[in-house]
């Protein structure tokens, strides 16, 4: 094993796959000469050259569409969005073309493409730069949505995403790029659509994904001291969701808290809540609690941002609530 940063895991995954398959290229703003806005493509221009590591002007709609079009002649592009907030300018291409070309053509054209970049908040970036659209993309048939929470998962899942023959939304975080973690020296991939129990426990199930899961870890550490055992499930893939892992865990613990950094209305946590009430109703000892951001655009002021985001204290309170403590 070796210890690397999250950004290095991303670069390694892309580079290893590009060495394996000539049809893969990386395209986006600042990905080449600047080495990536967050240095997630460091060194790749030097290795692969400007034909395969391609800087674009600020034209998220245009380059998304060109990349999607190139899948129809056999390419397997990786498109970097500097943040998924900017994907909104190009979302028509993702929803109406990438997600639908296979279906609309009756299966004639596949669309193997990865859109990747950071999602959700990253410090005091305020309203337009702090949004999480996992549920928007996950709502769309034709797409897959992956949101890893550590370098090991990121590398293994990104390699699988690049090899996948369907369009994949791969969401990272500006605040995770510097996170360090162990990865194997050699080649490995992780399966899409499989959650992982990050911590085993018996009293409460906490389901989360992406960087906010760290608040669950903090809460679980504290709760352990108080004699409460939390099982933490990292979804890793939001679509397709590992429904079985969630239901089985709830059948064991009988209590569920869902932690998701997103607006509360109709989000991924809502879907999980529906799933659990429909498939584990008789196992539940308490109503499910979901923890999300406040139902407002992200505020700038540090005091307000702290109030807006769900944190480990919220998780502790939620766990105690479902335990009636």
């Amino acid at each position, binding site marked *: 094993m070796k210890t690397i940063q999250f950004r290095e895991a991303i670069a390694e995954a892309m580079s290893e796959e590009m060495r394996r398959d000539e049809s893969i290229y990386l395209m986006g703003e600042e990905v080449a000469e600047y080495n990536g806005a967050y240095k997630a493509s460091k060194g790749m221009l030097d290795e692969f050259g400007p034909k395969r590591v391609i800087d674009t002007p600020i034209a998220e709609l245009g380059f998304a569409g060109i990349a999607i079009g190139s899948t129809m002649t056999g390419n397997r592009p990786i498109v970097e969005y500097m943040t998924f907030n900017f994907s909104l300018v190009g979302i028509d*291409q993702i929803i109406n073309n990438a997600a639908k070309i*296979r279906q609309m053509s009756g299966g004639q054209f596949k669309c193997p493409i990865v859109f990747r970049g950071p999602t959700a908040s990253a410090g005091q970036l305020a309203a337009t730069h702090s949004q999480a659209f996992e549920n928007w993309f996950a709502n769309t*048939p034709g797409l897959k949505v992956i949101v890893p929470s550590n370098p090991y998962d990121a590398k293994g899942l990104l390699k699988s995403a690049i090899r996948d*023959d369907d369009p994949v939304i791969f969401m990272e975080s500006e605040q995770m790029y510097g996170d360090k973690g162990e990865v194997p020296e050699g080649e490995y991939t992780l399966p899409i659509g499989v959650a992982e129990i990050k911590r085993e426990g018996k009293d409460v199930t906490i389901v989360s994904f992406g960087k906010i899961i760290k608040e669950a870890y903090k809460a679980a550490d504290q709760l352990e001291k108080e004699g409460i055992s939390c099982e933490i499930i990292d979804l890793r893939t939001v679509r397709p969701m590992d429904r079985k892992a969630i239901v089985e865990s709830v059948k064991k613990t009988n209590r569920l808290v869902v932690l998701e950094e997103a607006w509360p209305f109709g989000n991924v946590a809502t879907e999980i809540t529906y799933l659990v009430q429909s498939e584990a109703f008789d196992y539940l000892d308490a109503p499910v609690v979901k923890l999300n951001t406040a139902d407002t655009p992200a505020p700038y002021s540090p005091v307000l941002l702290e109030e807006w985001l769900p944190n480990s204290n919220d998780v502790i309170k939620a766990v105690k609530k479902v335990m009636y403590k």
Partner: protein
Amino acid sequence: MQKITKEVYLKWYEDMLFWRKFEDKLAAVYIQQKVRGFLHLYNGQEAVLAGALHAMDLTKDKMITAYRNHVQPIGMGVDPKRVMAELYGKATGTSQGLGGSMHIFSKEHRFYGGHGIVGGQIPLGAGIAFGDKYHGSDAVTLCCFGDGAARQGSLHETFNLAMLWNLPVVFVCENNGYAMGTSVERTANHGEIWKLGLGYEMPSGPVDGMNPVKVAEAFDEAIQRARKGGGPTFLELKTYRYRGHSMSDAQKYRTKDEVEEYRKIDPITQVKDVILEKGYASEEDIKAIDKRVKERVSECEKFAEESPFPEKNVMYDAVYEQKDYPFIPHKL
């Protein structure tokens, strides 16, 4: 470009007439409610397709367009029976009945759709050309759209990127005068759409879109430029659609006189006049072609009528390459 011979004129006449009659049939069966959804007809614009096909290398060149897309795949080589069946929502349709009128595709014949969002296919067309350049192919992509799409941001982003990356693509604006019910004049401060290319230093120009000879000559120049590495061209084809935007269009935005003016320069009539004038065929020969076209259209209708509807699993199987779909169970 191959010379425009007697045979070409006769092919043009039969092809264009077939496209016209094929769509007239679609309009008829639409009224009978055998074809549903939206139906956008190409009637009047046939010279653009006929001229384009003559200039293309149909062994490798590609085409993508918007939702007025029934006859282009036929021109590219797709069996018209399968196009008709798609509009009937039948399993034998080009997309197994999943796409309908606006979404005709044929990978085999390099027809890349059939796209329902105005301007959404413009970057895709450049992307197909990007892929060809990437893989070292000398194929050229014709990326077609209407005058309405010329007002979308996607056009401008794509023009810029296509010039920046020198892509082998010909951008084709089929200006039929109206974006649904809004005339070109009402959508910008000038009506010369081809001039939009000039800001990107893209070779651009207007073309008489009612005359297949003029169309073929303009396309030939543009396609050869792209094939030789000279990058994109933007052509504005001045054309006209006789029918409404779709079948529900009452056409109150234009006069009957205006439509009649264009019928005087009808592309099919223009070709027929040359054929008769030059003695390429007799009135009798023309009648024989007309009869053949009518029979071929009837065969399409019969095929579509008699084809089965799709099995329900097709709906799930088409969404992903991944096999275990749906992820979420549907009905109880």
